[in-house]
Structures are given as structure tokens and as C-alpha cells.
């Protein structure tokens, strides 16, 4: 179980143990933000709608947070809130990815050439 803490879960304190963890997380945050800006800037305007649907679905990664919180406590309030969180985020996961698939198919449909 102590090995699990290496994962960065730190279930008991739920906070980075020292400044180095925070700095690593900040570094990851900044790098991902810059990478995101560069990636999105090159997306054709044609696909901005499916892109928004996709990033929306990706932001439902908050489901991961809801699952972690669900595992942390057996307090009723916590369980209710976290379960709601899982349900809401999973709604976005399913509707988001299925919707992007639907939109992508619209773009791929080959019109009949005359």
C-alpha cells in the first residue's frame, strides 16, 4: 500500500508532501498549457465545433477526480457528492465522444460527384 503513494495519490493528506511535488505539478501544468495552445492553434476552423465537443469530453477527466474522492471516505455527504460527480462527468464522457464521432462522420461523408 505504501508503494501506492508513489502514484501521487497521498490519500491521507490529499496534498503534495513538499514544495518539490508542487513544482513538478506546476511544471506539468505549464507544459501542458503551452502544448495545448500550440495544438489548438493549428486546428482548422472547419473543425472547431467537433474540437469543442472533444475538449469538452476530455475535460470530463474530472471523473477520475470523482472516483478518487469516492474511494477516500465513507462519509455520506462525500459519497453523495462524488457519486453525482461521477454521474455528471460520465454523461459528458459518453455524450461527448459519441457526438464527436457523429460530427466526424458528417465531414467524412463523400458527396456524390456529378
Amino acid at each position: 500500500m505504501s508503494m501506492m503513494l508513489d502514484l501521487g495519490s497521498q490519500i491521507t493528506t490529499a496534498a503534495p508532501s513538499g514544495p518539490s511535488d508542487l513544482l513538478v505539478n506546476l511544471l506539468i501544468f505549464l507544459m501542458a498549457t503551452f502544448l495545448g495552445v500550440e495544438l489548438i492553434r493549428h486546428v482548422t476552423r472547419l473543425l472547431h465545433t467537433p474540437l469543442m465537443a472533444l475538449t469538452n469530453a476530455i475535460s470530463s477527466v474530472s471523473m477520475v477526480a470523482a472516483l478518487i474522492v469516492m474511494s477516500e471516505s465513507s462519509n455520506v455527504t462525500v459519497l453523495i457528492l462524488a457519486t453525482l460527480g461521477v454521474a455528471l462527468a460520465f454523461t459528458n464522457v459518453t455524450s461527448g465522444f459519441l457526438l464527436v464521432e457523429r460530427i466526424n462522420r458528417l465531414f467524412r461523408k463523400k458527396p456524390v460527384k456529378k
Partner: protein
Amino acid sequence: MSLDPNIILGLYVASIVLFILALRWMSEVRTSKYGNWSASLGMAIAVVATLLAYTIQRIDLLLGALAVGLIIGVPIAARVPTTALPQRTAMSQAFGSLAVALVGVAEYHVDAPNVPPFTMTVLSVEMILGFLTFAGSCIAFGKLQELIPGRPFVYPGKNFVSLAVLALAGIAGIYLIIEPSQGFALYILAGFALIFGFLLVMGIGGADMPTVIAILNSYTGMSAAALGFVLDNKILIVAGSLDGSSGFVLAVIMSQAMNRSFTNVLFGGVGAKVAKGTGAVAQKEARPVQSYAAEDVATILDNASKVVIVPGYGMAVAQAQHTVKELTDILQERGIDVKYGIHPVAGRMPGHMNVLLAEAQVPYEQLWEMEKINPEFPDTDVVIVVGANDVTNPAARTKVDSPLYGMPIMNVDKARTVIFIKRSMNPGFSGADNELFYLPNTWMVFGDAKKVLSDLVAAMKKS
């Protein structure tokens, strides 16, 4: 379930790589399908890895939540019409932001009453963002669904009141950092954040919804990233900030397309500007316009050799995209060159027109972006404007006091003839009167876009 933590870490890394590749592949139509598959796989891996790493006691609750997600999510994705995509985006943002906000509250209750200051600081920011985005997304949904008037809700000192409300939420947050045991402050924080989100989006007009949606998208991602800091979870940080920067970039692109500074949009300053325009409309005198019927338009189209169609939100409302395509086919059969000119903020969300036209099977090679189509207008015979308004208003180039002044527009007035299909003489979302209506080369055709276009198609078939 005790698994080697390195395996879990490896799964998280794989998931992160898949998310990044997804955005890369989403940049062009050729690879966009891989983008979606890759992101879906990344999400599945992230969730499975989390379930392996953390033991959830209440499997019943988990399964229940997943069932609810499936039951609500699948029909939404399958049934939402492409015309309603902006509303559905706002709705899913409401869901997503409520999820992060509630998880933030839950995490507070896990740690309370001894929440470390760092955790509490990030949680406060996260909850403010989550709740304000939830309220804002609900209002955006209401405006897009036309349950709430699209007009910006403005009153003297609007920005001061909004910022004061935000400050109160911030003070509640600071109090929580000092006294984390005082749970009531959390509800004050949530309440003020909700009010701020409500005021923020109520103050922004319907025309700015593409930008608002993008900004709210960014906030949801940021709150997910903040949760990543609290739970010290890298995948939350990466996916959250990818989403955060995506919304931010789209918002910047949208506000640039409207020639507004980003801060102007962020702080809802747009509303004040728009209100000025509404005032200008009130004083307008009745000026003559030339009104024609669909049959007249058919004759002029018969003699055209180059036609550009400029669609806007009205085309979506009337669900006229298929009729537009039908007209295009008839024109092309007669050897007439047809292109579509797409303004970056046409419609109510970024890229909305492209999806509608793709649905009607218009090949995307025929869709031209504003910068590319504008030089084409001077030698275009006929421009057909279907449900677009503000983005064609020449006042944006000439009238300094217009609320649209400085916004890059489609220069349709340079074409030989402009056919303007419109339900009434009402101004667009900006509230500005469209100068284009009164130009000698503009033909107004009044009526529902779909009705007018089917009449036009019928008339073309006869001739």
C-alpha cells in the same frame, strides 16, 4: 486490488499521450476520426487505471452513477440536431462544471476540519471556477435555447456589482483558508460564485455566445486541473490544462474575429458596447428597401456565372441547410460556380456553419474562410445571404459610432447583386441596423429562409 504502481503510472502516461495525439489529429478532417478514437481510448484507460489504483467500497453507487451517465448521455449524443449543437455544448459544460464543483466540495468534506492551507487555496479557486461556470453555462444554454432574451442585461455599475460579488466569493475562500473548519463559508463561496456566473453571462449578448462558450470551456478545464493539484494526480492536470488552453485559444480566435480585446469579452464589457447600438436603432428613420419575391431572384440567378452563399445562424434556425444544398446543386448543373463564404463567428459556436453544411453534404472544399472569399466578391455576380446579418454589415468598415465598427466582415456589398433572405427588418444580435439593406444593389427577400429557398428552387426548376 494491489497492482504494481508502475503499471498504473504507465497507464496514466499512455492516456496522456493519447489525449495529446487526439488534439493533434483533430487538426484536420483527414485524421479527425483518429483524434476522437484516441481521446476515447485515453479516457477509458484513465478511468480503468484509477479504478485499479483506488479501491471503491461502494460499487453499487459507482455502477448506479455509470448507468445514469449512459442513460442520459447516449440519447443526447444520438438525438441532438446539428442546429442545436451550441445549446448542447453549453449544457454539457453545465454538467462538467457542476461535476468539478461538487467533487471540490466533496474533497473539502473528506479533509475537513483540518484542510491544509495549500489544499484549501486551490480548492477555493477550483470551487469558485466550477460554480461560476455552472451558473454561466446554464444562462448560456437559456440564451441559446431562447428561453432567456439574448439581449445583454445591462444596468449602471454592472461591472462593479459583478466584481464585488466575485470579491465576496474570494473573501469567503480566504476565510476558509484561515479557518477551514467553518464549513458554512463554503456555501457562501458557492452562492456568490453562482451569482457571479449568472451576472457575467446575463450581461453578454447573444452574438458573443461563441466566445462565452469557449471561455466557459476553458474554465471547466482549469477547475479539473486544479483538482489535479489537490489530489496530486498528473492526468487531471494534463487533461484539464489541455482543455483549459483549448477554450482559451478558441475564445481569443473568436474575439479577434469580432475585433474585441479579450479582456473586453472576459469582463462582460461587450454588453455596454452593445447597449449603445440598441439606442442607435431606436432613432433610425424608415428608409426604403427593395423587396423582391423568390421568382425574381430565379431570373437573376439564371444569368449569373459566379455565386457565393453566405450562411448565418438564421440558416440553422430555419433548418435550411439541405435546401441551400439543393439550390447549389441546381446552380452547379447549369455550370454556375458556387462557393460558400464562412465568417468565423457565423452561427452561435465556433465552426457551427461548417457542421451544418457538412450534414447537408456540401463538400468542404466549397467552404471558403472569410480572408479567402473577400477578394472574390468584386467579381461575384450574386451573393445570397441566408440568415447572416451583422457579419455582412458594411457599417463595420465605415461608421465609427457603430457597435460593429472595426469587426472584420464579409464584403458582400462589393458583389454585383446581393440577395438578402431575412424574416423581417429586425437588426442582428448586435442591435445595429444593417446598412447593406439600403444599398441599390441589395435585393431583400422577406420570409423564412427554408420557405424562400424552396420557392427559389421550385422557380429555378421551372425556368
